[in-house]
């Protein structure tokens, strides 16, 4: 109940009480700057976390539903083995789409590595077949055995080998982003605690006078808590707005740019950074409150 009263007192303000503690320029500037800088970093950590989250989800969903069959056979047997493989695939339960990639598509796949003038005809390039599975999936081990029997040059690649580490890596990046936000909140709390302690020490005589005239710990602490909470929230607000502007100016997501150009907020995710100033105010409230009560107890 006392906490709720304190939160309400911070929001409501009390001009008489605010005047009892003189403003301290150094700790005020330190708190505003620290909160602003930390909020700026927190917005980027949040953007990283959300972007990697999107990436992990996309990789997981897109790759999980597709597979490739590669036909590597002597030149005269390729066409027959492709036909056999397509026949096997089309009769496999759980396979939705089977599509043989044409020469232009295969060239496009190889172009990033070998350039646009690739003489595809003169190279022993395997023929690729794209397989899209149904939501129920298919029996990959059974399919491999059937392909081996009907088309010995066919190799089924369901992307599992390289899909899992990628999704895991993206998931870890997302976790890292969230951990960064927690660390930033912790560092903000530590900096505000130091600034609050400095302000309390600088105002030891003021506290002594307030005690002498009958001020309780709650009253004295509240004067400091309100000041630091407002400073932290304002500083974090400014830092958040600057960071959101910086994120807005990042290049738009594109296929060519890959992951780096997708590092931003999309849709309603733009609302997430607005929580940061509120969080900073909350962290400042608790950090200052704890520091104030501890200091006041030590002062007797």
């Amino acid at each position, binding site marked *: 109940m006392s906490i709720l009263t304190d939160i309400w007192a911070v929001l409501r303000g009390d001009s008489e009480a605010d*005047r*009892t503690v003189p403003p301290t320029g150094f700790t005020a500037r330190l708190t505003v700057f620290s909160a602003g800088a930390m909020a700026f970093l927190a917005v980027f950590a949040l953007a990283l976390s959300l972007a990697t989250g999107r990436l992990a989800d996309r990789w997981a969903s897109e790759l999980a539903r597709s597979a490739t069959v590669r036909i590597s056979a002597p030149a005269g047997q390729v066409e027959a083995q492709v036909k056999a493989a397509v026949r096997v695939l089309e009769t496999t339960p759980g396979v939705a789409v089977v599509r043989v990639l044409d020469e232009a598509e295969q060239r496009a796949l190889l172009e990033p590595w070998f350039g646009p003038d690739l003489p595809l005809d003169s190279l022993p390039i395997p023929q690729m077949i794209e397989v899209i599975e149904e939501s129920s999936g298919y029996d990959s081990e059974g399919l491999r055995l059937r392909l081996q029997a009907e088309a010995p040059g066919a190799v089924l690649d369901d992307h599992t080998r390289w899909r899992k580490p990628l999704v895991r890596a993206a998931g870890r990046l997302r976790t890292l982003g969230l951990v960064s936000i927690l660390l930033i909140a912790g560092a903000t709390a530590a900096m505000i605690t130091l600034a609050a302690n400095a302000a309390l020490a600088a105002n030891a005589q003021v506290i*002594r*006078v*307030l005690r*002498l*005239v*009958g001020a*309780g710990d*709650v009253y004295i602490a509240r004067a400091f808590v309100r000041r630091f909470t407002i400073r932290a929230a304002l500083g974090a607000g400014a830092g958040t707005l600057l960071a959101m502007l910086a994120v807005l100016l990042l290049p738009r997501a594109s296929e060519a740019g890959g992951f780096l150009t997708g590092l931003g907020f999309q849709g309603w995710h733009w609302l997430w950074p607005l929580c940061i100033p509120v969080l900073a105010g909350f962290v400042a409230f608790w950090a200052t409150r704890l520091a104030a009560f501890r200091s006041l107890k030590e002062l007797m």
Partner: protein
Amino acid sequence: MIELTDVSYSYGGRELLSGLNLELKPGSFHFLTGPSGAGKTTFLKLCYADLLASSGRITMFGQDAREMQRDDIARLRRRIGVVHQDCQFLDHLSVAENVALPLTVSGRDVQAETSNLVDLLSWVGMTDQTESRPPELSGGERQRVALARAVIMDPEVIIADEPTGNIDWEMSLRLLTLLVELNKMGKSVVIATHDLNLIRAAKAQVAARVLRISNRQIQLAGADL
């Protein structure tokens, strides 16, 4: 009101006060005298719970000082007005704001108490300097403002620690008159001083008991005062 029973106080392993017994009754007037460093300020601090006794028992308005919570002590300070030699003001606030400080910290509406505040500043002769800052005041003015602050909550006890230490004799007598007036209004007054002339001047106006702290103990002073 305030009763000390076999109270001792030690600091850093050294006993500063020992075996103190005293009862401050409503409407009493006490002077506390003794050489510098005898423990007058320490004794006064024990009386308004700024220090806790090492042994013995101090009761304040029926409550044992040892059992008081921090909030109880804050409430107690509103019933005991304290005037320090160095006044202890908030220099960034005006005279009026400093006098109203006990009202502010106790959550009372200062605006509603304006007439009380004006009367009090008039009583101590500070009406013309309500917006001045404490560093702009003379020693005597500062003491009168401190007295106004000490009584604004209408306390039952007034404790003054060397209130005339930094002011001239004329101003000392003016301050004494104010304290005697408060005593005649039924408030208990305790003044620590080493100014024997002030004690003699007070005894001409009020029935004051004079206590002397000597050799860590408190005793009634002789008739020579």
